[in-house]
Every structure is written in C-alpha cells, then in structure tokens.
C-alpha cells in the first residue's frame, strides 16, 4: 500500500470518527437543551439549527468512509447475475461514473461556497451564521468520495476487489 493510500485512509478514518462523534454530540446537545428547559424553564437557543448543520456534516464527512466499507446502497438486480468478468467491467465503469459525478459536484459546490460568501448569505434562523458554514462540507465530502470511487475503480480494474467481498460493518 502506497504512502498516498495510507494518507487517504488516515483522512477517511479521521473524518469517519468526527462524523460518529457529531452523531453522539447531536444527541447530547438535544438532551441538555430539554433538561435545561425542564429545570430552568429556558433551553439553549439554536440547538435545533446546529443539529440541522450537524446532519450535513455527518453525511458528507462520513460519505467516503462509508463507500470504503461498501455501505452505500446499490441495486444489484442485474450486476449480481453477471459473469465475473462482465461484472468487473460493469463495476469498473460505474465506479468511474461515480467519481465523475462526485468531482462535478465538488466543482459546483466549491463555486457555491464562494458565491455564497460573496453574496453574504446568512441562514435566516435563530443563529444567523453564514450559509457557507453548511455548504463548505459538501465539496470536501464529495471530493473524498470521488477519490474513493477512483480507488474502487482501480481495484475492480486490477481484479483485486471481487463484487461483494469488500468489507462491510454488520450493523
């Protein structure tokens, strides 16, 4: 495994860890808000809004890590019935398409972040934070997802990955 791949894995694991931590944090913050409201008749403002932002962060920070574990749902009605060689080709092609889509989104999401900052757009909610705070994680997550799709394509191309034996966490 090359140095590049090791650094990629490190980043995916780090982001995966942050996404998991945010999930727990989201729960704790909401509980804290209810407890404070019950005890002092006043909750913390903006927790619901921050939870919404966390949802975006969890999704995009975790996306590439989940793909590494083959955890994104695909419809395998046709692919699972193909001959192994054909299967490899199809999976190679679809992985390339996947990475192309992700890079296109990365490009437009980056532009959207810049435009949002230029226009000075803020979220019209309890905490008036720049909308770019929400948006910035989309290009980051999509870029990594695109890279991971490329790696997946390479694995299918080299025949290292066989359909449905990539590791997956049993829930």
């Amino acid at each position, binding site marked *: 495994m090359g140095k590049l791949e090791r650094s990629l894995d490190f980043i995916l694991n780090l982001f995966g860890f942050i996404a998991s931590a945010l999930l727990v944090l989201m729960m704790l913050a909401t509980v804290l808000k209810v407890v404070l409201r019950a005890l002092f008749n006043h909750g913390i403002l903006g927790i619901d809004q921050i939870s919404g932002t966390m949802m975006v962060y969890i999704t995009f920070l975790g996306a590439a890590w989940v793909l590494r574990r083959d955890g994104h749902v695909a419809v395998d009605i046709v692919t*699972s019935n193909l001959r192994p060689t054909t299967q490899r080709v199809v999976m190679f092609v679809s992985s390339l398409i996947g990475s192309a*889509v992700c890079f*296109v989104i990365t490009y437009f999401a980056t532009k959207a972040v810049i435009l949002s900052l230029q226009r000075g757009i803020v979220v019209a909610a309890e905490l008036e934070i720049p909308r770019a705070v929400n948006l910035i994680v989309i290009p980051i997550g999509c870029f990594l997802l695109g890279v991971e799709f490329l790696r997946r394509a390479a694995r299918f191309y080299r025949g290292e990955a066989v359909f449905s034996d990539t590791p997956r966490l049993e829930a």
Partner: protein
Amino acid sequence: MIWWQFLLLFFAGLGVLMVIGLPVAIAFLLVNLAGVFYLWGGVSGFNQLILSIDSSISTFVLVPVPMFILMGSIMFHSGIAQRMIEVLDQWLGFVAGRLSVLAIAARALLGTLTGMAMGSVAMLGSTLTPEMERRGYAKSMSIGPILASGGLAILIPPSTLAIILASLGGFSVAKILIGIIVPGILLAVLCIGYIVIRATLQPEVAPSYQVTRVPITQRLNDAALYLVPPICIVFMIIGLIFFGTATPTEAAAIGTFLTFVLAMIYRKLNWQVLVKGVSSAMQLSVMILIILTGSAAFSQLLSFSGATSAITNLAGDMPVHPLLLLIMMQLIVMFLGMFIEQTSIVLVTIPIFLPIVHQMGWDPIWFGIIMMVNLEMATITPPFGLSLFVMKGIAPRNTTMGDIYRAAIPFIIINMILMGLMIAMPDLVLWLPNQMK
C-alpha cells in the same frame, strides 16, 4: 420538451444508472444534474442544486432518523436486543413466526413516536434481521415484515403526513388523525395474520426452535430485568411527546440517551460496543441521508417539469364510472409513489383531486384516509421505494435487491386488500371519526 418526455428520461435514466451498480444516491445526483441543466436555467441552476442538497437534510425534523438508528444500534451491539428477544421467546414460544410478528408489533408501538418510515425500518432491521437470519428465517419472513412495519409509522398517530393532507384538503385534522387509527390497526392485524398463517402452513420459512422450559419465577425475573426497562424507554418517549414535555426530535434524542444509560447499567457499554455501535449507526445514517440529498431534488424537478401534475390531471380528463374513477385516482397515486417522495405527492395531487371528490359527493375524510394507506405503501413499492433501499443497506451480505423486492410483494398485496376493504365498506373508515362532534 413535454412532460412525458421528461418523465421517460428521468425514469429510464435513473433505472439504467441503478442497474449498472451505481450507488442509489449517486444515480439520483447524476439524473438531477441533467434535469437541472434543462429545467433550472443551465449552469446557474447547479448552484441551486448544491443549495438543495444542503436544505434536504439540514433540518432538525429529520434528526429522529439518525437517533432511532443509534438507539437500535446500541441496543444490538450491547446485547440488549438479543436479551429482549430471548425473554420474549420464553413467553411467546407458541406463536409461529414470532420474530416477524414481533417486528410488526414493535413497529406499531414505535409508530406512535414519529411519522418517519425510514428511521424505524433501519432501527428494527438492524436489530431483528441478524437474529432472524441466525434462526433460519427465510428472507421473505425476515425482510418483508420489517418493510411492512415501516409504513405503519404514517398510519399510527401522530402523523405529519396526515396533518399536511388534512390542511391542504381543508378537512378536519382531528378527524383524519382519529380516522387513520382503525386502518392502521387493521393493517397490523392483517400483516400478523398473514405471517402466522404462512409460518404455520410452511414451517420452513420461520423454523420453530426448541424453547427450553423456564420456571415462571425465572421468567418473571428475566422479564423484569431485561424486557421491562427497554420497553419503558419506548413508553417514556411516547409519554414525553404525548404530554408535550418534548418535541418528537427531542424525545428521540432522550430515548437514545436512555438506551446508552441502560447499557451502562447492564455493564455492557465498553469501549468496543461504543465504537461498533456508534460507527455502524453513523454508517446507516449517512447511507440514508445521502439518498435524501438526491431524492428530494428529484421530486422537485419532476414537479417543475410539469410531469407530476400532468399525470394527476389524467384523472379529471376521463369521464368514467365513479368506482373506476376512484380506482384510477388511487392508481395514479400508486404510480407516483413508485418514484416520488410522499409529501410532494400530497402537495400536487390533492388540489387536483379534491374538486373531483366534491363533485362525486364522496366524503373527503374517507378519500383522504384511503390515500394515506396508498402513500404508506409507497415507501415499499419497487423500484424506488426509499425503505427498500434502507433495507438493502442493512440486510445481511447475501441479500440481493431482488430478494427485497420479492419480500415486499405480499405486504403490498395486503395493503391493496386493505384499500379494497376501505373502498367497499366506507363505514370501516368513517365510523370512528363520525363519533366525534
């Protein structure tokens, strides 16, 4: 382009991309990119697509989805779920296909928490399916009931969809909330009946296993220790919502937190359980949320193209027998339900259907409730029902999408039978709401 060309392209595009093994979320995004280019003013529309990705998931209303998943995941990895099932076995050992029955019953109970099908499918699927698999249940019996159970969320109050439907149609919110109770219970009963009969006639689909006889004192003791506490958590969540102490989002977070506490009390919350539980909950949540980033814009683009309302308008253009007209309208909803998100269906169809309903002299409550059952079914209709994708994501490795489609079919038929019953016997639906003043 005219609407049916858009429809055809959207449908075929999505189908092809999914069939070649592209993850569902990416297939949605790619079709959206094309749709945005044609419908939202070329390249400048792409900025809007990015905003729509953010808006589709950055809402606290969806927070119960990852919360219920986390709750289920901790219950499973800490062994709370398995102990619960063992204790239930001691008591219900005589019921054929009892884990499948349990799935339905648990879901009816969880249905009082939220109107969200996906979260509960994920939660029950990840806790119950591995156990069913281990005990040799056939896929139809392990996957089907969990899918069927997901839709119950919409039929058991509280149901946000029912409220949207009622306020849009201008009929009583209270009546529709009361009115969905009987069909909801009926649906649960029909599903349980089907499971028990099938498991009795075909024991191999849900093998009965030897339950060791346990003395009654031991049984009571186990129940008090391992069954009552988790059930209490669920009732506590219901209570928090019912008595208005917390919003649904808050109640879900509290319930999840209490599950952590319970696991700690059982001394089962070690570092390994925590890491496995939280990371697999994160994985499931990401998988579901990222599909939502694509499916929301997909529904909106179809509406923007005019396809959704054009299909709906077909109903008004056909002078047919009232019964046929009713069936036509429900078929349209069913068709839209195959690939469009439920709230969008309600928003587009109700304004067009309602004049027809009034013109025909039908009771709008009756019509609305039949439509609710139909929409409930939409989450599990192939090919693009979102609950089906969730199930695929959590089912054991060797489960194909075909297995999941097949497992859903009996329960789709049950839903259709229920709708047939409601059409044939309006009193079945209307009796309860008519008791109100």
